[in-house]
């Protein structure tokens, strides 16, 4: 039997079929499979000499059990959530700014969050790692304020969000400025300076169960407004005026979504430092392999981002083993190269 023509199909069916969801499902399953593999991989690989084989995971001795359950598992779970948050933030930012290069790192959002973390840690006279729950929440809150402030600063500097080059330039300027302020502040605290350097460069090494829990909680909280407002992001692709004429309140939509981007970035930065480019690459990978609307993108990009950061974490532990690279360095190398390729391709296509 041939498929009925759209003329006789109910419009609801047409609407559903207009998205090839089987491909999306396959894609998501693939992401999940990779995540599971990476999780196992990161349980086996590490600086400690206890590891031997996969069998070790299932029957560890007492000391290995601690390494496994208190260090490696929270680390890889936390890395997944942090990457997922960045993927979500990038997906939303690219939609809200209608600019494919918008992402927390390039917008300066991440630097703002890092400044927030630094200020709150200095004020509380504490260092990252081993923070209590309440303190973690406080640090994340400060990071959120910093993230939102930095994003607003970038937007006002670039006078609009559509011009890619001016947005990029403003983001770089803001990131540079806030980074310098962060460094100056840290100079007043030489005792935490070294730890903070490693942390701010992006490190999954500080993740404990409580930080993984916080990352997970923020992720699920952020998903709700993201899913609800995804239709607004779809409408924005038709142009701002058209979106407005459809009955959307653009300022409210933008403000809410920027809030979500700030929160997601802040949570991620407050637990794993400034990890760049995951928010850029994850939505791009989705869009290059699938045709998606924003509801689908905001599911797929986090899954992709989570797997990406887990992979980067694994690489950072493996490349110069038994020593460890900061995970931010790995993502910066890969992401920077990707950005260059992207810019080159765009300039060639006019």
């Amino acid at each position: 039997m041939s498929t009925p023509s759209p003329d006789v199909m109910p419009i609801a069916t047409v609407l559903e079929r207009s998205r090839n969801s089987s491909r999306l499902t396959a894609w998501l399953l693939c992401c999940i499979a990779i995540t599971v593999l990476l999780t196992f991989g990161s349980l086996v690989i590490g600086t400690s000499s206890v590891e031997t084989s996969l069998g070790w995971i299932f029957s560890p001795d007492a000391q290995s059990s601690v390494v496994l359950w208190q260090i490696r598992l929270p680390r890889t779970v936390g890395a997944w959530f942090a990457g997922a948050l960045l993927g979500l933030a990038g997906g939303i930012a690219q939609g809200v700014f209608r600019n494919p290069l918008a992402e927390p790192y390039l917008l300066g959002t991440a630097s703002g969050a890092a400044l927030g973390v630094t200020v709150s840690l200095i004020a509380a006279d504490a260092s990252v790692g081993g923070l209590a729950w309440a303190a973690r929440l406080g640090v994340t809150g400060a990071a959120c304020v910093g993230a939102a402030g930095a994003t607003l600063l970038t937007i006002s500097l670039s006078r609009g969000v559509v011009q890619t080059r001016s947005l990029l330039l403003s983001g770089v300027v803001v990131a540079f400025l806030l980074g310098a302020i962060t460094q100056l502040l840290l100079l007043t605290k030489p005792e935490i300076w070294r730890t903070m350097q490693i942390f701010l460069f992006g490190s999954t090494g500080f993740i404990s169960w409580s930080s993984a829990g916080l990352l997970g909680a923020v992720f699920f909280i952020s998903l709700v407004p993201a899913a609800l407002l995804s239709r607004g992001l779809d409408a924005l692709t038709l142009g701002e005026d058209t979106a407005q004429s459809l009955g959307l309140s653009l300022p409210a939509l933008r403000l809410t979504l920027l809030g979500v981007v700030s929160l997601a970035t802040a949570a991620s930065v407050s637990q794993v430092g400034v990890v760049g480019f995951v928010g850029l690459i994850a939505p791009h990978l989705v869009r290059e392999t699938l045709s998606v609307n924003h509801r689908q993108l905001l599911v797929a990009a986090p899954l992709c981002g989570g797997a990406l950061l887990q992979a980067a974490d694994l690489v950072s532990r493996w490349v110069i083993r038994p020593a460890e690279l900061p995970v931010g360095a790995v993502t910066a190398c890969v992401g920077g190269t990707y950005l260059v390729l992207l810019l080159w391709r765009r300039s060639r296509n006019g």
Partner: protein
Amino acid sequence: MGDAQRHAGPPPCEGGSLAALSCADLSVGYGSRIVLRNVSLDILPGCWTTIVGPNGCGKSTLLRALAGLEPSRSGTISLQGRRLFSWPRRERARRLAWLSQTAAATDLTAAEVVALGRFAHSGWLAHRQAEDDAAMHRAMKATGSLAWAQRRLTTLSGGERQRVHLARVLAVEAPVLLLDEPTTHLDPPHQEDVARLLREQAHRCGVGVVSAIHDLSLALTADRVIVLGHRGVIGHGSIREALAGDWLSSAFETRVNVVEHEGVHLWRPALDAPRGA
């Protein structure tokens, strides 16, 4: 609004019926430049009005201002007897639909774009009801865009895209339609289809339709015309009034020849006559 109510509207363009959309002493400008000065218009329900005028005279600006997208310097706009901006946002969007000049290319599919036209009805949760589906189906069928309902807009031609956006605007089923050059990118037979569609919307459904149209012959098939010149509104009235007063020549500041052939008004290019003669 139910179907019965839509069809029970006043007969086309009857004088004295309450304006669907009106503006009084409307002035709009960008920076120090005033584009429209003290414009007063009544858009009647059940009537198809076209806006004609030279490039840059403010046709788009007028439509955007009437749609509430351009802040006005002074003057008031009323939609169905109530100040435009005092309507709650979504209720306003249900009563007034606007089509932009540029048919945006997006990665959304045609069906998804048309579904966005029902946003003012179905809201954030996108809970579509039978009437939403029916409106979408009617709009896509009327514009002939059902055939590519499942395709992404980036894969469609300019004309096809234009018709999808037109379907999105029709799907709102608003009593007032403002369309900025709905016939651009379309081949002549499809321009004709769109013109017929707009007239049907006005005459059969009682919608107040306003469209900016470049093609003078096509524009003169409407019920009424608003003629804009660089110095403001030249006139607003029936086609007959416009031709009798030679508003077009005043607006374009050159001789515009319109001939009548079997009851149809046609613009005739006169290449041999000296300009402005």
